[in-house]
């Protein structure tokens, strides 16, 4: 019902604000997997938005072992903990997270090119 409301192009939807806030900080529901270029052909994969209940270090350990790459957990003042992995592991991470049942597939957003 509320979804329908939002589709109607009305001037002002009192609830739109709150909802958009949620999706805007989308980090709350989405797990963002990003890639960043480093020098040369090196790159970096970051995983942001995993639920706080999870032990990041445990996940990181598994990821590192699974993909044979190094990585670390970074504390970001705004976004909380973020996992960093060496290389472009976006596909790997996404399949891993889904298979391990940590995140649902539709809640993963892969960014980058």
């Amino acid at each position: 019902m509320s979804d329908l409301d939002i589709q109607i192009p009305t001037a002002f939807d009192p609830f739109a604000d709150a909802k958009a806030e949620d999706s805007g900080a989308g980090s709350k529901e989405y797990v963002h997997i990003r890639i960043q270029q480093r020098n040369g052909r090196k790159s970096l994969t970051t995983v942001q938005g995993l639920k706080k209940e999870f032990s990041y270090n445990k996940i990181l350990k598994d990821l590192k072992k699974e993909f044979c790459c190094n990585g670390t957990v970074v504390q970001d003042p705004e976004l909380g903990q973020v996992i960093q992995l060496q290389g472009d592991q976006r596909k790997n991470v996404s399949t891993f997270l889904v298979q391990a049942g940590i995140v649902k597939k539709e809640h993963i957003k892969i960014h980058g090119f």
Partner: protein
Amino acid sequence: MADENQLDAKDEVAELAPFDPTKKKKKKKVTIQDTEDDSVDKLAEKTENLSVSEGLESTFAGLKKKKKKPVETSILNEDTGDAGEDLDDHAGEDDKGDGLVPEHRYPWEGSDRDYEYEELLGRVFNILRENNPELAGDRRRTVMRPPQVLREGTKKTVFVNFMDLCKTMHRQPDHVMTFLLAELGTSGSLDGQQRLVVKGRFAPKNFEGILRRYVNEYVICLGCKSPDTILSKENRLFFLRCEKCGSGRSVAPIKAGFVARVGRRNAGT
């Protein structure tokens, strides 16, 4: 014929052809083009066939015969070389003439063989295109030119036609730029010639992929797939309103998200 040329042109830019939100659609489109090409080819074969050797069943046989024939004649007429050339010329003209004659619009005309599925399909789509182009599936799509990219030094990439593409999408360059940079996970800015200079090395198809996502998220109307939309900011929310069907939706603001510190360790802090 003009129609075919147009198609060909589109074919050339098939790579960028892109901003089709539904893959299914794209697939369909491709097959249409294929069949069209096929039927055109067949048309050509058939006309050749008709002009040279009438009543031959197999088009291939006809083709072969046709190819051989002029050679033979030229060999035969070798002593009078001019005559041979004349013959060839005439044959060529005849072919062209046949192609233009409207009676041979369809490959099966002039024979009593069965229609082939592809041919009929091609015919249907030709008629559709003539009468109701919007139903033929290739309603004037927002064809965007592929991103042109230059390398600046070894560490920067220049997106040359960035402004052009913004204009085709009818979006603020700022908005597009924010999205591009957020997705690429890098920084960049516009230079004096309004080109987008981005830190890092990126291929044109990198930009293309991201632009495609941008179009899906911030340009295309979900209801009618029309790209005639307006992106406006209301109460610090972004709204996408369709000019065609009037539907609207809110779109997520662009968030850069986490950007890892890359580069020299002692740069900051």
